[in-house]
Every structure is written in C-alpha cells, then in structure tokens.
C-alpha cells in the first residue's frame, strides 16, 4: 500500500519537500539532528554524482571521497585565506574540484575495469596524504577553519540554504541523465563500439562524466566545510569512498532515487549503532551483503517492479524473449 502510494511521483516529491521544510522543527532545532540531515544531503549529492559516473556511464571510481576533500578544502581556502563570499566560494569550489576531475579523467579515459579502479583508488588514497603534507596551503594535521557566511546569521537558515542547493542539484543531475548527454553516457556503458559508430566521441564524454561528477561532489564537499566550519585531512578517507560505492549499488545503479535511498540508509545507520563501538561497520557490511544477495538491482527495484507490470503491453507475449540482461558497468 505504501509502496503504491510512493509510485505517485508528485505526491512523493511533495511529501519529501514538506518533510525537509519542517525537519528542523521536528527535531527541535537540535544541532546533532540537523548535522545528520546535512551529512545525508552531502552523501546524496555525492552518490548521485558517482551514480552518474558508474551507473549511467559505466566508469568505475573507488576514490570519490578524494573529491569531497578537495571541495571542502577549496571552500576553506577560498573563504578564509582568500576571503571570498559564500555564493562565489561554493561554485568555485565545484569548479576547482571539477578541474581536478578533468586531470583524473584524462588518463582514466584509456583505462578500463580494474585498471581504472586502481587508478581512482590511488587518487582517493593520495588526496589525504597530499593534504597532510602540503602544510603551507592546507595547514597539514591541524586542518583549516572555514569562515561561515555572515549573511545567514544562524545554522538554522544555513540549513535551508543547503537543502535548497541539494534539491537544485538533484534536479540538474536528473535533467542531465535524461538528456542527449545522459543517453551518450549510457551508450558508452552498453556498447562502446556502437556508441562510436553513431558519432559519440568516447574520450570526450568519459572526461565530461568525470568533470560533471567531480564538480557536484566538490560542491558537496564545500557544503560539508561550511556546515562544520572546519576541514581536516581525515574527514573523507578511502572508506568513505567505499561507503558511497555501497550506497549506489544498494540503492540502485543508474537511478537517482536509488542514490538518495542508499545515501539516507547509510547515513542514518551509524546514528543507531554509534553507541556500540565497531558495530557500525558490521551492520553496514551485513546490510550490503544481504541487499545485494536478495535485491541485486538495489532497493529501488522494490518500487519499479509494480510499475513495470502496469506498463507492459498486453498480448505481446509472443514477441518478447526473455533475454539475459547485459552486465551493467565494466569493472
């Protein structure tokens, strides 16, 4: 019944928006719960960006937390060291992270599967090390403070700004994956040969995917910096990259709602398990294993199944051949 109701897109989105608007009041303006919500937004943006790259484009990245770190430090440097205002610093952080994404994307274009995985893994591992050792710019171990924007006096209004930004980014990414650009990404994932034959420049679009994905992830990192007011080298390490990867597979590959579901799930689990040391990893790990064993297409497939039954035209059985679906991403 609830599943049926959630299929109504407008209703679901409307409910979500109302929930986000009243959330601070629900939790009594508690700083802890507002932070939990913002962290969820950050992971939602990151997992949508990663899903664009992996789920839609078929290009693996196991180092996406590196882009979060770059975004966070960009905001710190731009706001504190350079002194730029919020509305300049945040998009600039995205652009700076996007440029790093371009640098990573250029060699990554030549690599496939495990080779790409190890290259991006190296990136994710290296960023914290570089940040740690580039004292002059990053403050090394001690991290950097982020100047909070004065125009929104309290965390309360900042919360709404970030919610609005998250909603806008969701809309932008949704538009991109539904467009000719998104189709080019999927085409590359499904058949590079056919993609080239219909005029898709593979290297260009692979690089573009990396740039778009890292741009939005950089913004997410920037949101983190502004919300916490402080960035340090170990905020986002390689295990965070793994976590985002788990989010998109568990939520659902090539699905924006799936990315969000995964992000919510894995951001909220630690809230319930944190009081027992070491349990968080076990619970998340078991959740990952179980969901993939029993719902290989992710949680989002729970919703889609009912839908497909409705869409399938009746009486066309003889034309339809049950074909095995091709593998998703070339990893």
């Amino acid at each position, binding site marked *: 019944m609830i599943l049926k109701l959630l299929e109504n897109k407008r209703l679901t989105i409307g409910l979500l928006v109302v929930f986000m608007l009243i959330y601070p009041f629900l939790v009594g303006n508690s700083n802890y719960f507002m932070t939990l919500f913002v962290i969820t937004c950050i992971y939602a943006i990151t997992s949508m960006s990663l899903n664009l790259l*992996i789920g839609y484009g078929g290009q*693996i990245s196991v180092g996406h937390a590196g882009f979060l770190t770059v975004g966070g430090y960009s905001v710190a440097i731009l706001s504190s060291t350079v002194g730029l205002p919020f509305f300049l610093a945040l998009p600039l952080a995205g652009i700076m992270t996007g440029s790093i994404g371009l640098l990573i994307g250029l*060699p990554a274009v*030549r*690599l*496939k*599967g*495990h*080779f790409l*995985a*190890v*290259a991006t*893994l*190296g*990136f994710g*591992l*290296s960023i914290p*090390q*570089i940040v*740690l*050792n580039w004292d002059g710019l990053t403050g090394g171990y001690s991290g950097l403070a982020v100047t909070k924007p004065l125009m929104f006096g309290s965390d309360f209004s900042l919360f709404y700004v970030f919610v609005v930004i998250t909603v806008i980014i969701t809309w932008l990414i949704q538009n991109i994956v539904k467009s000719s650009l998104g189709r080019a990404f999927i085409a590359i994932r499904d058949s*590079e*040969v056919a993609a080239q034959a219909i005029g898709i420049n593979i290297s260009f679009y692979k690089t573009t995917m990396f740039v778009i994905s890292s741009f939005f992830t950089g913004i997410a990192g920037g949101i983190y910096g502004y919300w916490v007011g402080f960035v340090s080298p170990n905020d986002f390490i390689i295990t965070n990259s*793994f976590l985002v*990867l*788990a989010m998109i*597979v*568990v939520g659902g*590959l090539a699905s924006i709602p799936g990315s969000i579901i995964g992000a919510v799930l894995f951001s909220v689990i630690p809230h319930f398990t944190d009081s027992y*040391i*070491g*349990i*968080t*990893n*076990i619970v*998340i*790990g*078991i*959740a*990952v*294993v179980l969901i*993939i*064993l029993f719902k*290989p297409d992710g949680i989002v497939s729970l919703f889609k199944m009912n839908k497909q039954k409705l869409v399938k035209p009746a009486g066309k059985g003889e034309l339809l051949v049950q074909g095995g679906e091709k*593998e*998703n*991403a*070339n*990893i």
Partner: protein
Amino acid sequence: MQIIVSGLIFGCIYGLAALGLVLIYKTTDLVNFAQGEMAMVTTFVSFTFLSQFEMGYTTSFLLALLFAAVFGAIVHQGIMKRLQSAPPLNQLVVTLGLFMVFNGLAGLIWGHKPAGYPQAIKGDSIKMGSVFFTPNEIFVMGITLTLMLIFFVIFRYTKVGLAMRASAQDIKASQLMGIKVTNVFTATWAVGAILGGVAGMMTAPITFLDTHMMFDVLIMAFAAAVLGGFLSLPGAVVGGLIIGVFENLIAFYLSPELKLVYTFLLIIIVLYIRPQGIFGGTQSVKKV
C-alpha cells in the same frame, strides 16, 4: 643496496597477497576486496594459538592456514557462490561489505589495541656482501618464491590447474566436461585465503598486529596485481617486488610521507603507457 633489499622483503609480502588476489580473479573472475581482512583474521587466529594456547610457531602457523582454508571455503560457499553470475560491480561491493564485517568482528573479538607478533625465525643479522639480512627476511623471501613456484606449477601442469583454467574460461563448457566448477572455485578461495594468511603472518612482525594492519598491504597488493596485468601469476609477484622496492626508494630519497602518492603516480604512468599492465597480453579488439 640495503634499501633495495628491504624493499624486496616488502615486495615479497605484496607479491604473496597479490598472488592470492590474482588467483581468485583469474579463476572466478572476481576481485576480492575482503582478502586483506581475511588475512588479518587468520593472523589473529594464529596469534590466539600462539599466546592463549601457547603452541609453537610452526603448529600455530599451520593451524592458522588450515583455518584460512576453511574460512575461504565458507565465504565462497555461503556467499560468493550465489553471486557467480551477478554483475561484477555487485560482486565487488559485496566483498567490500565483507571487508567491513570482518574488520568490525575482529575489533569486537580481539580489540583495537596493537600487539607484538613474533617473527618466524629469530636470530642475528647475517652479512652478505654489503647487505644485512635477518634470518626472518630470508625466510620471507624463500617462502614467497616457493609458493609462487608451487602455484605456477599447479596451475600450469596439473589436472587441478587445468580444471581451474577451464572453469575460468567457460563455466558451462567446463560443467559439461564433468568439472565441478563450484568445487574448483571453492578450492580457489581456500587457496587464496591461505596465500593471504601467509602474507598476514609475514606482515604482523613488521607492522604490529592490529585490525588495520592488512589495509595498506591489500592496497599495494591490488596495485601490484594491476601492474602485473591482473591475469599473470608471475606478474603479480614481480609487480609486488617492483612496488616494494620503489616505495622504499621513495621513502628514503624523497619523502616517507608521500610514498603512497608516488607509488600510485608510478602505476598511473605505467598504465597510461600500457593500459593492460606490464604482463598483460595485447588488448583484444572487440569483434563486431
């Protein structure tokens, strides 16, 4: 010279772990991210034998390897078997999930405090030419080379190896030929876990025993496997040696903090020039 030699020692450990990764990948087409954590658990088990039950090193070592074999087999039979035909990304993420479970469980059981772990062979350093070796280092090198040779021979020249190679190429055809593919895969997981366990027990004396000790080794093993082309057993070991030496040279001459960064830079450069790795065959052009 001394730097190169100690690099080779680390390289041997990376090579061993990489050998386990490549063996599993070559046969079952799956990258096992939980490999390092399984090795860590095995090492803890051997430590329990050593300290709680006060057994000798050799007994503990062998019992731990037995445990590793069973452990690997259970993981395959219980979980990975069901994912044989799942998309590769799903398989990878499941091994990441297992990684987190094993890490959390080990922390619960053995705690998070690092402990000292004995070397296989104690004794004073021996001087050969201008280089000092400890007997333990010689043991590490010896065991790596032996294991590599053994697996190379098994894979190449025995019936079991043939079954493994056949299953890797075509599951259906192998089944039709009477090979019990699932059993072959389970055995491969057992062997992979043993190799990881050996690497773990070689690592522990150098890094101390704790739940995170195998993480760096796994990363480097992964890198070594990729450098070697991901399909070549000798390639994995050679990749491990190259990375071990390179890492040590960077740590000594440039910056110990950034050795990881430089190592990955090296790998990315190598892969940019040869996208299929050093020992990888020529890239196949897809036929249309």
